[in-house]
């Protein structure tokens, strides 16, 4: 138990990323409003970004831009940073499309509550 606590203290960015992922999943599962679900999806995405970039970081390292005045400096790993650049752009486009769908759902059902929308659909199909 003590070893696990010490490891969690050493690996604190991964630990906080796990907690953020859990909070996002809880938001998606238990909140009924569609906007709140969108916030939850965004929080989960950023938790994954923190996990990747935290793995690339080096203590006392410098950023991955070639600098000839710094001799013998340790550069951090540039690969996860490039991959997450793609991820941020994809997350923006997913958010835009989700917002467009929310507008259309609000127009046809008059509410942004997911549970209410499901009730209305049930009434329509059982009649």
């Amino acid at each position, binding site marked *: 138990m003590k070893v696990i606590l010490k490891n969690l203290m050493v690996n604190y960015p991964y630990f906080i990323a796990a907690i953020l992922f859990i909070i996002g999943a809880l938001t998606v599962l238990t909140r009924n409003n569609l906007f709140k679900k969108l916030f939850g999806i965004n929080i989960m995405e950023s938790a994954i970004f923190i996990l990747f970039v935290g793995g690339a970081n080096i203590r006392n390292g410098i950023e991955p*831009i070639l600098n000839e005045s710094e001799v013998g400096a340790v550069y951090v790993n540039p690969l996860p940073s490039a991959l997450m650049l793609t991820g941020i*752009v994809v997350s923006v486009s997913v958010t835009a499309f989700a917002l467009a769908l929310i507008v259309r759902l609000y127009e046809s059902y008059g509410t942004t509550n997911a549970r209410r929308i499901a009730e209305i659909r049930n009434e329509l199909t059982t009649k």
Partner: protein
Amino acid sequence: MKDFILKHIAAIILPFICIYGFYVILHGHISPGGSFAGGIIVGLSFIAFITIYGSRKGHAQMPDKVLVFMESYGTLWYGIMGMIGIFKGVPFLANKLAGVNLGAPWALSSGGLISLIGIGVGIRVTSTIITLFFTMMEDES
């Protein structure tokens, strides 16, 4: 919106935001930044113009034809740049293998195809942002 102070301050400050966006696009390969961030900054300066001066003046500045042109040909530009490798007989999107002059490092024109591709991607990201906001604000009224 009919706010006198907002309109006059925006007329002074918006061109500088736009030029800062172009700076970020053009210097993407020698300093932090890049075409995605720069394209979003240029697009946001246009969006500030639209929200302050109204949607009709914004449409007069940026007609739909220009937006469609930028959007589609910006995407095609990436493919055209990649075809240079095919014509030289090396793989698709090759840069140094295709014999492109790389230039001196730390100069603005260095990097061969990288800076050209960056300009194209910056233009198409700008048009994407403006198109999204035009569609969303049209729906509101």
